[in-house]
């Protein structure tokens, strides 16, 4: 295992310290639990809070700031955070208009956030939760833990954050988050696995000519292993699964998001976007907004995911609204 670190047990806290040191006007760290807080919180707005295992940077700590999250609670690498983190973070940033938890759909995340919500509700804090489950690689049935929350989470945090910044009520912000989740679909693939620092070896192994389709963001293997194909064919396979699922229809305006898993060069991500644009054009879909880069990653994994969000006027306006975070910034 080759990693830039000092002590394996300290990677998460040292990385958080670096985030705070590089963005002192934007964020601060909670004094007692692992949580990234907006520097100017609490403010009189709905507090939007997310969290989950570490290793997906810039998600979520990199999205704390103006127009996005009020707090992020990172667990250990690929491990859900614990309820006390969400509880303390909420206490620190809540400004009287309630708290929205944006939760990625993983058993651990859902349970830990639920416990924190129970603790806060017990103290009279108004808490709502929305579970993001946009990964079409997973069969959504009674016989699974349900679809995972992946790339759609980034878009939801941006859009919902803009609404909260604009003064939306907890009900409105929650409803908007559910709306985003209902209109967003994703799928991922990997060329290489990644290594959890504490584990010291790769989470799975792939032959030199193999790829894994349908991977999640936790180094967990996907739904199918196959021979490596040209980028255009991979994109088509993934985009088709996404487009058919909602379904997206000709004429629909979409936000097209090509996300790197952490170790993929930007050159390849743009190449993939080019194939995606061609595919969507053929299906009659209109790319009205786009995002290309490393936004929700799996450590140093090589691979990418595609996320499509069906836009409307409301979503476009909120997407374009100013945002200032370590990971996403425009308009200020």
């Amino acid at each position, binding site marked *: 295992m080759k990693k830039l670190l000092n002590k394996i047990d300290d990677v998460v806290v040292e990385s958080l310290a670096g985030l705070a040191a590089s963005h002192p006007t934007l964020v601060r760290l909670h004094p007692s639990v692992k949580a990234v807080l907006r520097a100017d919180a609490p403010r009189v707005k709905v507090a939007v809070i997310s969290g989950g295992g570490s290793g997906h940077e810039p998600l979520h700590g990199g999205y704390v700031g103006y127009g996005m999250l009020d707090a992020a609670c990172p667990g*250990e690498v690929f491990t859900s955070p*614990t309820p006390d983190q969400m509880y303390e973070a909420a206490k620190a940033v809540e400004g009287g208009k309630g708290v929205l938890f944006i939760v990625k759909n993983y058993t651990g995340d859902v349970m830990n956030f639920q416990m924190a919500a129970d603790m806060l509700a017990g103290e009279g804090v108004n808490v709502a939760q929305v579970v993001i489950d946009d990964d079409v690689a997973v069969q959504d049935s009674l016989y699974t833990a349900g679809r995972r929350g992946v790339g759609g989470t980034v878009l939801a945090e941006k859009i919902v954050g803009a609404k909260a910044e604009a003064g939306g009520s907890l009900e409105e912000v929650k409803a908007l988050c559910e709306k985003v989740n209902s209109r967003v679909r994703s799928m991922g693939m990997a060329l290489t696995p990644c290594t959890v620092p504490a584990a010291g070896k790769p*989470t799975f192994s792939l032959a030199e000519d193999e790829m894994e389709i349908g991977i999640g963001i936790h180094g*967990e293997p996907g739904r199918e292993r196959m021979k490596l194909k040209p980028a255009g064919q991979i994109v088509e396979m993934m985009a088709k699964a996404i487009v058919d699922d909602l379904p997206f229809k000709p004429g629909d305006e979409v936000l097209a998001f090509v996300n790197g898993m952490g170790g993929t060069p930007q050159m390849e991500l743009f190449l993939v976007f080019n194939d995606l644009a061609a595919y969507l054009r053929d299906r009659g879909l209109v790319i009205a907004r786009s995002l290309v880069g490393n936004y929700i990653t799996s450590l140093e994994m090589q691979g990418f995911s595609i996320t499509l969000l069906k836009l409307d006027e409301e979503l476009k306006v909120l997407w374009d609204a100013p945002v200032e975070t370590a990971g996403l910034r425009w308009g200020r």
Partner: protein
Amino acid sequence: MTLDVQGMLKAIDAIGETLEMHKDYLTELDSAIGDADHGINMNRGFHKVREKLSAGTYVDLGAVLKDVGMTLMSSVGGAAGPLYGTFFMRMSMKLAGLQAADTSSLAEAMEEGLKGIVALGKAQLEDKTMVDALTPAVEALKKASGNGAALAAALESAVAAARAGMEATTPLVARKGRASYLGERSAGHQDPGATSTYLILSTLLTSLKERV
């Protein structure tokens, strides 16, 4: 023979040791069908538990298990954190005020703990989770208790049942937790959580027997 506060403290300490020893093994199981952290998570949690318990003085079993549950809850994370946290907290409620547990009260407490896990995680038997190891163990304990078995003998049967339940997870297709994402490909691998459950119970037994 009963399980008293000192016995419980010693058992928890031994469980921590066992999980430390099996950290890589559990993580390896989790890397086959999960995200390669179960051993790391459990070890981190029980490391904190041992720190916590060694700093306290306890006179009742409930207090011991409450601290175990709270500490696991705030240090394990993942799916296993709230599940094992709930398990020990629910047990602690049943054993609150007791200075020692006999077969029957341990069986009741574990049954209550199992209920907590099921209420939270909604797993059914054969979903390929820790529930597959814990359910037969609790049933064996209750049966032994009904038969008036001594604690060690009762636990012996519970551990055997947990082991069988753990081993039986191997051919199953997962329907809960991260492993469920793999669908059919999850078959052929033993569930990490069922394995940690077995390790916890078998270490409880060993620790108890050593004290005799």
